[in-house]
């Protein structure tokens, strides 16, 4: 599947015997690729206008001291011009090394990493466990599956409010904990429990996707492999370890990458669960949003700078992930 074939001409790219000279090839290629470029043009235009231009503009903003008090704005009929000025890399310096940089950036950074790792690990393990259970011949399998997909089916902005009612002080969860004489923590106020609650809710929201994808992966594993393993005397654990896991590798690498990106970028859960009340439970994305839009005056420059840092982290991570997969001779299924 991976052999690079120019599908328009049906020739394998490795076909070197018939390669003409360089100039001729270039001329030839323009005639040949004209179509391709015309076809990708709409997306290139859209991305240029909607992604590249804002990105460049955002990049410039990070080099200024723009906030809502000195940006161009219109109050009533009066238009006030922007008065922010260029300050170079000071924003980045301030975020990364400035005074109280730990409280503002690094503590959120560490929490974001912990959040991503814990959430994705939980998503994957719980999802895999449920997928394995659903992959057996079991009465009511379809029924279980339908219910287990529910947290994914209902929009997150709805379910998070359901959780908020449950987690509120005096809500059902604390009432139940009280009833069995367990301590009832302040889920939405105490930092540790805020983080705990955020991970819990996000796990609840994210497991169905993993479960369904991994179930698809499990069902595509050739049953004869299990037969062969059984003939060779493999027990259940060995079958899982040496047939199931390798068989899931391609699906796993995709869903784990998607899961990491989604969790790292997860906005709705934390934003809707806490609003602006939990400065310590904010991950970098929601923190950047808070800086830019959740406080007065709005600090556009710093918020944009956080955005750039986030993007940098994601790009570095993804390149390493791809490289790591390539070294292990796997195809990244995305």
């Amino acid at each position, binding site marked *: 599947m991976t052999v690079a074939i120019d599908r328009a001409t049906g020739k394998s790219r490795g076909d070197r015997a018939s390669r003409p000279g360089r100039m001729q090839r270039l001329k030839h290629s323009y005639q040949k690729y004209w179509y391709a470029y015309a076809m990708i043009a*709409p997306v290139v235009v859209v991305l240029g206008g*909607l992604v590249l231009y804002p990105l460049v503009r955002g990049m410039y903003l990070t080099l200024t001291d723009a906030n809502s008090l000195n940006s161009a704005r219109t109050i009533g009929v009066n238009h006030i011009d922007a008065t922010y000025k260029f300050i170079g890399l000071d924003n980045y310096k301030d975020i990364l090394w400035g005074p109280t940089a730990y409280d503002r950036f690094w503590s959120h950074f560490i929490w974001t990493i912990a959040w991503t790792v814990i959430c994705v690990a939980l998503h994957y393990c719980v999802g895999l466990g449920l997928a394995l259970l659903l992959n057996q011949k079991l009465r009511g399998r379809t029924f279980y599956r339908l219910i287990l997909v529910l947290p994914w089916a209902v929009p997150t902005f709805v379910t998070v409010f359901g959780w908020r009612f449950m987690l509120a002080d005096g809500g059902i969860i604390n009432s139940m904990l009280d009833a069995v004489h367990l301590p009832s923590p302040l889920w939405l106020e105490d930092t540790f429990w805020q983080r705990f609650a955020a991970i819990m809710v996000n796990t609840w929201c994210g497991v169905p996707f993993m479960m369904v994808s991994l179930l698809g992966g499990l069902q595509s594993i050739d049953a004869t492999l299990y037969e062969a393993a059984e003939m060779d005397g493999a027990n259940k654990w060995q079958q899982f370890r040496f047939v199931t896991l390798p068989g899931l590798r391609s699906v796993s690498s995709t869903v784990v990458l998607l899961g990491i990106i989604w969790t790292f970028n997860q906005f709705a859960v934390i934003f809707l669960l806490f609003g602006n009340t939990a400065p310590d439970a904010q991950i970098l994305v929601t923190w950047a949003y808070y800086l830019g839009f959740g406080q007065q005056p709005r600090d556009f420059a710093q918020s944009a700078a956080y955005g750039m840092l986030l993007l940098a982290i994601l790009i570095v991570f993804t390149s390493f992930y791809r490289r790591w997969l390539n070294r292990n001779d796997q*195809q990244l299924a995305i």
Partner: protein
Amino acid sequence: MSTTTLQTPPADEVTRPAESPRPARKRGQRGLAGSLASHGILTVASLVALFPIAWLVYLSLGPDKDDYLHPGRIWGTMTFDNYTFVLQHTNFFEWMKSSIIVSLGTTVVGVMVAATTGYAVSRMRFPGYKKFMWVLLVTQMFPIAVLIVPMYQILSDLQLIDTYFGLILVYCSTAVPYSAWLLKGYFDTIPFEIDEAGRVDGLTPFGTFFRLILPLAKPGLAVAAFYNFITAFGEVAFASTFMLDDSKYTFAVGLQSFVSEHDAQRNLMAATAVLVAIPVSAFFYLVQKNLVTGLTAGGTKG
């Protein structure tokens, strides 16, 4: 040493017949205990999955806004008053209109713009191909924090804050690359011989695409459309920031507006949440299977 080797063969002979009377289990069958355990775990998991939503439904029937603290009270006083109130006296239908306009707009633009590109990157290799794919991949994973500030300023400059069109534009920044990626995966599954046949019959690549491939790719287009719709519908950050007029809120924003600093109408909020959740999840269940295949298998060919 010699004694052990001598003794093993009889030992084997003894154990084998002893084991054989036990009925041989077929693969995939478990004992009663295993089956019970599976059912047990799945039941617990289902309850966990179901409970928060069921709770929301239950709370939506309570007449008082603080009933979520005293769920016992609801049992005797269940009523649909919250629903009638939401439908009659709030901006519910306006929010619905906004949500649908924005989601449909994103869906249509996203899929239309992305279709030819998905085809091009599926069938053709051109100079810059790898870079282009990388750009598509990276733009999909933009955190909202990257674009939200500059987008806010650009939309303000263009006076597009608080307009549906502005929000659609913003959503397209992720919907378009994502759709292109998803569609590429689908086009990859359409046999390449069809293109050849078209070419032999004298169609240009555009002709091949529009007259042969596009009709065949309807399921793929549908998946991309569903995905765009669901994503746009559930988006919180941009909608909360860019829509200021409460008659233009999408559901994701409108729902938040029930809880303000002064008042928290949680019973109405729960009712609205249920009203939103029912059609969306029904829709989701209809398309769910295609969605998963599209998401994971869609891009398996790098």
